[in-house]
């Protein structure tokens, strides 16, 4: 088979190509999808650490009532940057990293469609992240209006920090849009002969849909922050009632981006979970077709529900009813996905290696996040919960237990393919259980804080909230430290460890497993044929 014929490349790797630059220049100029995937993954892990340290700073301040380590304005900067860095610097690039590594290998393509564009998409990220981090140290500090950047607070804030943030968002948006164009082109044009769209694995499928979402909504966000920029510096009044504008306009525009954004974050995770569950159940994915349709339905519905983030802004009751019903509809395709996963496991032959553990953790906890989402969809209940810790708990269940858990599942699942070594399974399991326990310790109690009425984004709180905040803080530090286990495991796996076979998981399906481990620097130079 051509797959093994390419195998000789693996041991020599890229050193084979005498003309290619080495060292730093190799990484700066690379157009190879695997190199760029690696860059994305390391960058996002670094951002995960930076955003994580900010989260721990926030949690440390919240360990007790009163102000201890952060003044309120610093606290607000921390919550803002934590959100922006995690969403745009950590989670989104992680999945672009997986897409770069895996989509060409999974669809039998030689590389991504646009190599140089791919390089630029990545190298836009470090400057953007630098702008965000540097903004902490400029006079006036970083943006302090929350990651949602609501006007008029963003217009009011003095100092260059807010402007740096706006430019960072512009750059991050450009990077995402270019990455998406690349992914769509690759998937639509470079699939192996015989691989029809409806034979494509779930991961590229979910990414195809996600990429369209990104192209549709990132320009909307760019528009929203540009309006803030001109309100700040060029005398426009988009968000100032005195000048004929409306502060709530910002929220409509932002959430028209923001709601699809949460699906941008979670859909590729759905793809990963579908593939992992199938592999470790040793059984074909149940309802493949309905999985594809459910993903597409979720994506389309995501454009019609944005104002459920804004129930308390004072929209007419008819608006509240419409957005409530529309939001409830999303529960149906999401439910279909969960049922399909469970049905895939039903009467399979299950084993519980680390990727499967993270997938199971994902399904249970993401469903909990879905339930709290359904509760929040109910307008009168949301009026009690909006902008409280209930919302914080809800979106961390879908962002962390959802997106992050699926990213861990993906990393463990494909690490042997990338490195040619097996990771330490025991350490992987320890990482999972620590992550699971500390995650719930951090975020489950926040539901109760929200129910009791603790607002979000406050550095100091009334005494009755103390105990749950303490539990949450202890959990957060445990969660943060547990991730060092993952880092250690990945590094040792890169450096050595038992040799991985071409297909380390006996139930795994897909073209990537026809390639040797580690995957050669250039794979599928001759396209495989899919029957």
């Amino acid at each position, binding site marked *: 088979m051509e797959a093994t014929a390419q195998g000789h490349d693996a041991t020599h790797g890229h050193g084979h190509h005498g003309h290619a630059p080495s060292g730093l220049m190799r990484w700066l100029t690379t157009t190879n999808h695997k190199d760029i995937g690696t860059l994305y993954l390391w960058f996002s892990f670094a951002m995960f650490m930076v955003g994580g340290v900010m989260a721990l700073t926030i949690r440390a301040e919240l360990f007790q009532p009163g102000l201890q380590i952060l003044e*309120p*304005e610093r606290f*607000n900067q921390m919550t803002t940057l934590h959100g922006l860095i995690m969403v745009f610097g950590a989670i989104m690039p992680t999945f672009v990293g997986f897409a770069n590594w895996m989509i060409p290998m999974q669809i039998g393509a030689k590389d991504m469609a646009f190599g140089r564009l791919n390089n630029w998409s990545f190298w836009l990220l470090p400057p953007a992240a630098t702008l965000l981090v540097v903004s902490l140290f400029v*006079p006036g*500090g970083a943006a*302090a209006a929350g990651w949602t950047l*609501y006007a*008029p*607070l963003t*217009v*009011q804030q*003095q100092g260059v920090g807010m402007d740096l943030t706006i430019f960072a968002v512009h750059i991050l948006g450009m990077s995402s849009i270019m990455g998406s164009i690349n992914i769509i082109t690759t998937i639509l044009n470079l699939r192996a002969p015989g691989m029809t769209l409806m034979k494509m694995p779930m991961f590229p499928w979910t990414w195809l849909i996600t990429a369209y979402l990104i192209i549709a909504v990132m320009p909307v966000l760019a528009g929203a922050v540009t309006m803030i920029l001109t309100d*700040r510096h060029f005398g426009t009044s988009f968000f100032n*009632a*005195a000048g004929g504008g409306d*502060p709530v306009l910002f929220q409509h525009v932002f959430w028209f981006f923001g709601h699809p954004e949460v699906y941008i974050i979670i859909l590729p995770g759905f793809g990963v979970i579908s593939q992992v569950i199938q592999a470790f159940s040793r*059984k074909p*994915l149940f*309802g493949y077709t309905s999985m594809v349709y459910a993903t597409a339905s979720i994506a389309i519905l995501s454009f019609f529900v944005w104002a459920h983030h804004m129930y308390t802004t*004072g929209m007419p*009751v008819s608006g*509240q009813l419409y957005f*409530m019903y529309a939001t409830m509809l999303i529960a*149906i395709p999401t439910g279909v996905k*969960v049922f399909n996963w*469970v*049905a895939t*496991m*039903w*009467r*399979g*032959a*299950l084993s*519980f290696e680390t990727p499967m553990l993270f997938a*199971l953790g994902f399904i249970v906890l993401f*469903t909990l996040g879905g*339930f709290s989402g*359904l*509760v929040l969809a109910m307008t*009168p*209940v949301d*009026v*009690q919960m909006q902008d*409280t810790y209930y919302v914080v708990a809800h979106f961390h269940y879908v962002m962390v237990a959802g997106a992050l858990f699926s990213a861990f599942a993906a990393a463990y699942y494909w690490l042997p393919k990338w490195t040619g070594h097996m990771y330490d399974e*025991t350490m992987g399991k*320890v990482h999972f259980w*620590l992550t699971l326990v500390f995650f719930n310790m951090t975020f489950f109690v926040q539901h*109760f804080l929200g*129910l*009791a*009425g603790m*607002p979000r984004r*406050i*550095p*100091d709180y009334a005494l009755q909230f103390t*105990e*749950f905040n303490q*539990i949450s803080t202890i959990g957060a530090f*445990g969660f943060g430290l547990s991730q060092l286990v993952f880092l250690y495991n990945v590094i040792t796996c890169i450096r050595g460890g038992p040799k991985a076979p071409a297909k380390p998981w006996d*139930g795994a399906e897909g073209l990537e497993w026809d390639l040797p481990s580690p995957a050669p620097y250039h794979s599928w130079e001759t396209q495989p044929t899919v029957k």
Partner: protein
Amino acid sequence: MTKQAKWANMLRLAGLLVLVAVSGLAQAEYKLNFQEPATKVAQNVYDLHVWMMYICGFIFVVVFGVMFYSVFNHRKSSGRTPATFHESTTVEILWTVVPTLILLLMAWPVTVTLLEMRDSSNSDITIKATGYQWKWGYDYLKGEGEGIKFMSVLSTPKEQIHNSAPKGEHYLLETDTHVVVPVGKKIRMLTTANDVIHAWFVPALAIKQDAIPGFIRDASFRPSREGVFRGQCAELCGKDHAYMPIVVEVVSQEKYTAWVADQQKKMAAAADDPNKVWALPEMLKRGEAVYLQNCVACHQANGKGLPPVFPALDGSKIATGPKAGHLEIIVNGKPGTAMAAFGKQLSDTDLAAVATYERNSWGNKVGDLVQPNEIKATRK
């Protein structure tokens, strides 16, 4: 020691640490649901949430019952050959239709509650709440008590916030003045803001309404029992977002009538003669009080501010320069910054007093005195 044993030991140690931490917290009293409702709508919302929890709990048990049955019984280690089925139209239709029916079951009571919540017609008393950075202002616009207006500021001392004094029972949820309303009457709340978006949130009354600068929104509540109900601003509004609580005191009709009379008397007494000419010492004393209530959050007690966002007044060119420029900023604010137009919030006398205080405190020694009629002139 094998690798497994080493990890197991480390896990045990971590577990022990967590246990110790948790047991320390085990004595505390935990609230697991909404605050006790004080209106019928709040009670409906409470019941709705409980009802949702039952439905979600039921679905959770069924779905994950099936999943965990699989996890425990369909293991590779028990030597099974996996089944090969991968679709079933009947099952797929069923699990699309059943959730739809469950959603309809939820939608009905929610819709009824929402319509009730949003009905603010036929109210007995109308109160306008205005969000300022970082306090609330109240105007009783209609009904018994019409004409009453006051500001409501956090009354927790700074020492408690900075941990140099023990924290009181209502730490951060106490204000100098309370919104007083009679029990059983329908109160319509109008919300607006002076600077950025705030949100008027009192959990026990099931009311949260964004206060948006330049617009007026409304919401309503009919308290069903007497008591003191505490809430906070719920929309991030800048530095002191955590420090602008709301206290609503629900009293009997008789007590309310008495409170209204008392307030009207107090307002009449507090109204200053706008033509009075003040002397420097009394003006400084009053100015300090006004400063501590309105200016200190940004410009700080020592007048040094928090540059560059909140400029220093001590040694500032404006506060030591010509009166006109100084008064202009105090009365009309500085657009595009956090400096509010205090002309809308304070009386002529208070504004004159605070200007006098700023010109003659810390290192500032201008020596002049601002009289209320100068403020009146600036307002024009």
